[in-house]
């Protein structure tokens, strides 16, 4: 039997879809499955680490790419790697960090797939220095709606390439990706942590480190208000030379059950956030940690999304351009603080510039990300945040999104017209569809 009826969710578990899922075990299965047309279309689903509805297709088909997870070639001289799209970052880091190579860009979870990294043009804590994942893709092989496999790169089918980088899976199924791993002197990072007293302090600190630090990330207490607004910890990091003695890696733990909704309340979260802030001594500290611990702080807690209970949560991530960032991020944090919507730490980072995709998220500016439990007032808060982002010339990250409006989306993503032109050409019959694409009218508003 080729298709299996199942219910899938995004990582936030706020979006849910009943789908017919196909799970190709080799390239030819993929072609066969694509040939089995469905009126509601099909979308590739990697590890399900997008938070919202990007990989979901309610009432239609999805293709689970997890078994297409082989490393096809690796050149240790150039770092050039070719792999199938279902390979995860965890896989790559496990194989290559001990050999002195690291992925050039990694999202905050290692469980994401390389196909997902391309389709969402993901960024890491080094965006200012090296750009997003799509900037490192030398070429990729794409299975089109017709079943034909097309190799696309910045030189070969550049329009299709630009439509696929950050294209949320709508141009086809990514089969192989070629990119360069970067040589690193050790599998450890020297991480400097310092307390930052308030939001202005954060912007000042980022202005001085964003051009120098290889990696930087800020953790903000989303519940701090008034003069403490934006209080948090700034981490900067660089790969350590081989001589350091890192702190021990932690054993993964698991959230065994859905926690009840009451577990996350303003008091418990405020306590956690306060402890997180106090953990770092007032004078700051510097230490070597295993790379995975810096890159993937939450991966040590498997199924952490269950902390938010059955109803799930929303993640909100936006970027606001440099000149409007101080005002925009402040306004957003004030809204969030006023809503008292319990959230763990918010993440503040800098982004260096635009990506190569028509729908690439990055632009030069500051990006803020945080979670909200899915409660009644969360929807209204997200609407206000969308407004703030629009008013400050920013955009919302589709990989995290479950609620953005189609109008807001169109205003935030000026590359949309170019993407639509490509889609009209390569997939006129809309073989590729998703809940996200329908919600945002990405391929054109529903007729």
């Amino acid at each position, binding site marked *: 039997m080729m298709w299996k*009826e199942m219910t899938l969710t995004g990582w936030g578990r706020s979006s849910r879809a009943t789908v017919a899922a196909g799970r190709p*075990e*080799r390239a030819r*299965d993929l072609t066969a499955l694509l040939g089995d047309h469905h009126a509601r279309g099909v979308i590739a689903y990697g590890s399900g680490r997008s938070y919202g509805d990007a990989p979901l297709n309610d009432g239609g088909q999805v293709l689970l790419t997890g*078994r297409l997870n082989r*490393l096809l*070639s*690796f050149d240790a001289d150039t770092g050039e790697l070719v792999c*199938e799209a279902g390979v995860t970052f965890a896989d790559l880091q496990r*194989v290559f960090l001990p050999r002195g190579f690291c992925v050039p860009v990694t999202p905050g979870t290692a469980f994401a797939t390389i196909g997902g990294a391309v389709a969402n043009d993901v960024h890491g804590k080094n965006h200012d220095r090296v750009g997003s994942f799509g900037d490192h893709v030398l070429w990729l092989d794409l299975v089109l709606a017709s079943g034909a496999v097309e190799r696309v790169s910045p030189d070969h089918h550049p329009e299709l390439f630009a439509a696929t980088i950050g294209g949320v899976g709508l141009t086809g199924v990514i089969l192989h990706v070629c990119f360069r791993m970067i040589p690193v002197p050790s599998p450890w990072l020297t991480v400097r942590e310092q307390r930052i007293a308030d939001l202005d302090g954060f912007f000042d600190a980022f202005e001085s480190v964003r051009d120098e630090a290889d990696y930087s990330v800020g953790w903000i207490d989303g519940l701090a208000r008034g003069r403490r607004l934006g209080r948090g910890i700034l981490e900067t990091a660089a790969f350590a030379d081989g001589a350091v003695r890192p702190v021990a890696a932690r054993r993964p733990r698991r959230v065994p059950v859905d926690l009840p909704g009451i577990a996350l309340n303003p008091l418990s979260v405020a306590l956690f956030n306060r402890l997180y802030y106090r953990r770092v001594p007032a004078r700051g500290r510097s230490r070597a940690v295993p790379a995975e611990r810096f890159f993937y702080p939450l991966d040590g807690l498997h199924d952490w999304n269950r902390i938010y209970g059955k109803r799930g949560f929303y993640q909100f991530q936006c970027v606001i351009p440099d000149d409007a960032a101080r005002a925009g991020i402040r306004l957003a944090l004030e809204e969030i603080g006023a809503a008292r919507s319990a959230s763990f730490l918010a993440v503040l980072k800098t982004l260096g510039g635009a990506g190569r995709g028509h729908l690439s998220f990055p632009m030069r500016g500051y990006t803020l990300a945080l979670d909200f439990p899915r409660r009644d007032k969360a929807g209204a808060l997200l609407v206000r945040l969308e407004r703030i982002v629009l008013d400050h010339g920013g955009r919302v990250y589709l990989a995290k999104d479950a609620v953005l409006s189609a109008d807001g989306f169109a205003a935030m993503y000026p590359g949309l017209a170019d993407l639509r032109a490509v889609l009209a050409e390569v997939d006129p019959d809309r073989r590729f569809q998703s809940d996200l694409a329908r919600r945002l009218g990405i391929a054109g508003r529903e007729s």
Partner: protein
Amino acid sequence: MSAATWLVLGASSPVARAFAAAAAADGHGVLLAGRDLDDLERTAGDIAIRHGVAAEAVAFDATDYDSHGDIIASCRAKAAGTLNLFLAFAMMPEQADMEGDFALARATIEATYVGAASVLSAAVPMLEAQGRGHVVVLGSVAGDRGRLKNYVYGSAKAGLHTFVQGLRARLSSAGVSVTTVKPGFIDTGMTWGQPGLFLVASPEACARACLRYAERGADVRYFPWFWWGIMAIIKAIPERIFKRLSI
């Protein structure tokens, strides 16, 4: 086991692929045999990169019987150390499709049973000459009793089980272990989307178990182990009752 080479026959299947990876993780070389060379070369590349062992794709067609002797000989020539065999190929169309189409039923029997008997026979002189090594044959719980829903495939596996029993006796005097593994439900394309499955095991777990059984020189094993009990019950049902069951 000191480093050996595993010839994996039918290496595109998920259990076989996982078996090759598990063997490679233990430092053994792998020869990946099957028809889909493009796919096998991907797996070979993956294993070579991850585990740093020799990994190569080998063209093999279960029903091209005349070729089996040469394939075994060339694999023996290529392999470092002892050459072991993991036989994982089979064909399992829907029973209903075979009922109106004997050609399909025959192809199933040929690929699943005759092909296996052929390549195992071709390997016997090599294994005897080697005087050591392991053979693992993937059987099936479907071969333990002919069922309404799956008897063509089941009969081929039953034939294979019996063949392998004899082969075990023959090779035991040569110091070669022969292990039959009868998997229950494994999470592969064969079971994907099938209704009524329970306790489905991962291909990786099945593969690791197969490797462990081989190292211990086990004879017949169910995987997961509790299928022994399930099949004991199914085999014990009197035929006059069993024939009325639609399982």
